[in-house]
């Protein structure tokens, strides 16, 4: 269902069949692993068996000698990066670290760390050759726990890492360390806030590492041509950042690299960083042939993704009449092998749902011997929501206060200053809670024993960033739209619909194409819930550009003054009741000056944030600790739903990922830092037999920054589920879960502690 402010649209809010749909239900859509240029070789990679070790020697001679092997590369083939830090569209990256992650140099920092690669006539020969490469390691003690890694005596992963963000003059700033960054935000008077509190709660929370879990493994096929041009066909969330990363890693001009974004089989943040393209390119340069690299599932788990494991300590102060008056938070996020966990957004999101007068949050970005973490759907926010949303629920149950009422009373709204400083504009936090409170689900009685109901709210900023669109009017009245935003979830259609709405034509009359980096204008990544927002703005701009040109063309066609021509409801009107529909006018363009091409760009740094509130019913088996999800409803402030089906789909998909995070998903490491569950069998993502239907309530609070009020919807739905489920478990069996996943043994252990 959908509630909130409504405006009248012709195309927006309808549910056309997506433009790429037929290709995807017939198997014709071409994904990265499907490309097969003439003469292509198959590549395979050698990966580290150790979590932490120094590489003393690599001998690839036996691999190179195997018949059918055409090229072998190691990090020695990658150019030196010095200590450059480069802006890569969605954040700055230390190139030395990025390069060492692509192919390890002097050290391996996690099990599965890539060391060498082979290109051969068949995948089987390539794999046999990889087994012939010998590496001499000097194993080092693995650092696996974020708190242990912060200790002064911990083994240091990267000797070039120093702690950023310390107080001026702090001597620790000059010491090699695993703590790459410290973040501190403060608002009001925290001590006085706790003084004024009637109830103070303080708890520790632990979150395990989880993976984005996209079904399509990373892949890249590269051709390094004799003319120096490099073409990469790959699965990526951002062809332009993939191009830049590849060019920077190979130290070639960015224009020498063309990235062709194939259809992408899921990303969720994990397909922004590059792993394979530079390696495939080097193998191609050595062999003179195109080379395809595809990761196997174990490599995807062990060497890509994941989102950080985390330790959080949170203290909250409440007045007995139910006001949140003070908060103090300590967050330590695992960066993995190299700095760069989402500790910043984690700290900024933790208190963002609430109007809290006094708060302090301190966060740390900490290197450990696990894969380099990457963005995953609202990076850093889910961990934070798990902590604060379960503690608020704990207070509400103690104070016998309705958790929805508490959130409505304390919720963030326009004018509230966040702990990180800025003041909220129009946001829909309270509206989403009201939507849940008023829902049939929340109002319905919860029958049965060992059952509980929980709610939780989540926040994510949503990025804006840069997008471009070009649109060419065809003589038959259709429009060919070219964008650079890879389409992971139907954005070709949601972008095309905005162009159609602006032009007053049908969605089906727009033919959207995702172009490669030589044919499309610059677009930042498909991430940060930004494409329907930012590329949508670019499409609207392109449509306006077309309109302004069409007015002139119509005037020329009618031989009247352009000032007398207007564009209204999908056509032009002129003097003496002249009117041409868009289609009629399109047919005349070749007589009045040729093609009409609209251009649009957008460069908003961010959107107004998005909020979601979820309600879940669970049943807990008190003998085994297993949790079943009985019913689930998610309400979200979506701004304006362009294609409601795909908005619902984002919310449903995010909610189920959150359910997986809550109940079973985790990296299971042994003491030597070996991940022991790097398969879809033992890394337990929800199957459809594990979840119910996910009901959605689309709350439409238009974003003033977007012409149609669009807000990003993709990320925030992953934030509330773990907390909502923990709260439901508390209602069902009276135990408070403070560690994710809330797997059966952990829940049972808490139950057994009770009696």
């Amino acid at each position, binding site marked *: 269902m959908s509630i909130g402010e409504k405006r009248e649209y012709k195309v927006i809010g309808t549910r056309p069949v997506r433009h790429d749909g037929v290709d995807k239900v017939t198997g014709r859509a071409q994904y990265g692993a499907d490309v097969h240029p003439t003469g292509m070789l198959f590549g395979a990679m050698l990966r580290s068996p150790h979590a932490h070790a120094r590489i003393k020697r690599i001998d690839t001679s036996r691999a190179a000698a195997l018949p059918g092997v055409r090229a072998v590369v190691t990090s020695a083939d990658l150019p030196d990066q010095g200590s450059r830090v480069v802006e890569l569209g969605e954040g700055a990256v230390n190139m030395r670290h990025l390069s060492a992650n692509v192919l390890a140099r002097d050290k391996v920092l996690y099990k599965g760390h890539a060391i060498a690669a082979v290109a051969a006539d068949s995948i089987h020969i390539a794999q046999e050759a990889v087994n012939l490469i010998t590496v001499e390691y000097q194993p080092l003690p693995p650092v696996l726990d974020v708190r242990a890694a912060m200790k002064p005596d911990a083994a240091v992963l990267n000797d070039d890492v120093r702690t950023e963000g310390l107080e001026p003059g702090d001597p620790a700033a000059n010491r090699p360390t695993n703590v790459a960054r410290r973040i501190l935000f403060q608002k009001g008077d925290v001590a006085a806030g706790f003084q004024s509190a009637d109830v103070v709660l303080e708890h520790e929370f632990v979150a395990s590492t989880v993976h984005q879990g996209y079904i*399509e493994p990373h892949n890249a096929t590269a051709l390094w041509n004799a003319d120096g041009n490099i073409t990469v066909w790959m699965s990526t969330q951002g062809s332009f950042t993939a191009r830049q990363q590849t060019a920077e890693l190979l130290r070639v001009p960015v224009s020498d690299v063309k990235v062709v974004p194939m259809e992408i089989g899921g990303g969720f943040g994990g397909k922004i960083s590059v792993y394979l393209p530079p390696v495939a390119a080097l193998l191609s340069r050595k062999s003179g042939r195109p080379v395809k690299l595809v990761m196997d599932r174990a490599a995807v788990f062990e060497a890509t993704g994941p989102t950080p494991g985390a330790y959080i300590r949170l203290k909250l102060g409440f007045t007995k009449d139910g006001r949140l008056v003070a908060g103090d938070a300590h967050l330590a996020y695992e960066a993995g092998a190299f700095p760069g966990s989402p500790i910043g957004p984690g700290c900024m999101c933790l208190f963002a749902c609430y109007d809290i007068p006094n708060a302090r949050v301190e966060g740390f970005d900490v290197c450990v011997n696990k894969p380099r973490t990457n963005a995953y759907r609202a990076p850093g926010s889910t961990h934070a929501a798990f902590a604060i949303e379960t503690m608020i629920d704990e207070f509400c149950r103690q104070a016998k206060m309705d958790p929805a009422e508490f959130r409505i009373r304390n919720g963030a709204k326009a004018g509230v200053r966040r702990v990180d400083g800025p003041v909220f504009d129009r946001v829909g936090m309270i509206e989403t809670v009201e939507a849940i409170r008023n829902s049939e689900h929340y109002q319905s009685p919860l029958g049965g024993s060992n059952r509980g109901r929980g709610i939780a709210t989540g926040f994510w900023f949503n990025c804006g960033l840069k997008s471009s669109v070009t649109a060419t009017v065809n003589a038959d009245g259709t429009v060919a739209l070219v964008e650079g935003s890879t389409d992971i979830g139907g954005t070709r259609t949601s972008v095309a619909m905005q162009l159609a709405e602006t032009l007053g034509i049908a969605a089906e009359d727009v033919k959207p194409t995702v172009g490669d980096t030589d044919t499309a204008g610059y677009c930042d990544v498909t991430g940060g819930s930004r494409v329907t927002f930012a590329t949508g703005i670019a499409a609207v701009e392109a449509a306006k550009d077309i309109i302004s040109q069409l007015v002139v063309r119509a005037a020329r066609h009618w031989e009247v003054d352009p000032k007398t021509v207007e564009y209204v409801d999908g056509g032009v009107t002129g003097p003496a009741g002249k009117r041409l529909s868009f289609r009629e006018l399109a047919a005349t363009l070749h007589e009045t000056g040729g093609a009409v091409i609209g251009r649009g760009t957008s460069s908003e740094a961010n959107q107004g944030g998005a909020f979601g509130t979820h309600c879940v019913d669970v049943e807990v088996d008190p003998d085994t600790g297993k949790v079943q999800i009985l019913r689930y409803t998610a309400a979200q402030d979506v701004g304006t739903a362009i294609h409601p089906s795909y908005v619902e789909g984002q919310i449903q998909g995010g909610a189920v990922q959150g359910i997986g995070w809550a109940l079973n998903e985790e990296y299971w490491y042994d003491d030597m830092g070996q991940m022991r569950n790097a398969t879809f069998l033992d890394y337990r993502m929800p199957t459809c037999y594990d979840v119910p239907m996910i009901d959605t309530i689309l709350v439409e609070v238009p974003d003033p920054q977007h012409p149609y009020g669009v807000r990003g919807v993709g990320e925030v739905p992953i934030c509330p589920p773990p907390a909502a489920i923990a709260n439901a478990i508390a209602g069902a069996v009276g135990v408070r879960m403070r560690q994710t996943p809330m797997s059966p043994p952990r829940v049972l252990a808490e139950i057994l502690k009770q009696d």
Partner: protein
Amino acid sequence: MAKKRVVQTTINGDAVEFLCEPRQTLLEVLRDVLNLTGTKEGCANGNCGSCTVLMNGRPVTSCLVLGVEAEGAEIRTIEGVACGGHLDCVQQAFLEGAALQCGICTPGFIMQTEALLAENPQPTEEQVRFHLAGNLCRCTGYDKIVRAVLAAAEKKRANV
């Protein structure tokens, strides 16, 4: 290296003969030998269902079948579902129900659904979820997939 074998099989109704090494899986043969890339690889160990094809009418994960085992078998892949340029009603239901986002798991889900509806034309939601449990989707949360399967079943029943 083991000698390549000549394998005679039927794929999407056509008699097909191909050469393969014993170690090549049916998935590898379909994709790399026969260029039928609609069948996708997600995990290569039978846990995601992306490579589901019908073998003698029954769904199997083609990553766990050897190409040589296709000798004399009837194989049906996603490329063989739409006939004469017309989408099958399962494909239609997935399209209209927005039951896909990235689409990588879609061919596997469609093949698995074809098998379900062939043996159980009137499945309950519970039966659909149990039958599709061997197919992972990370994008949709399954809601729209399950609804599409139920809608396709209804449509199939209405058509006959």
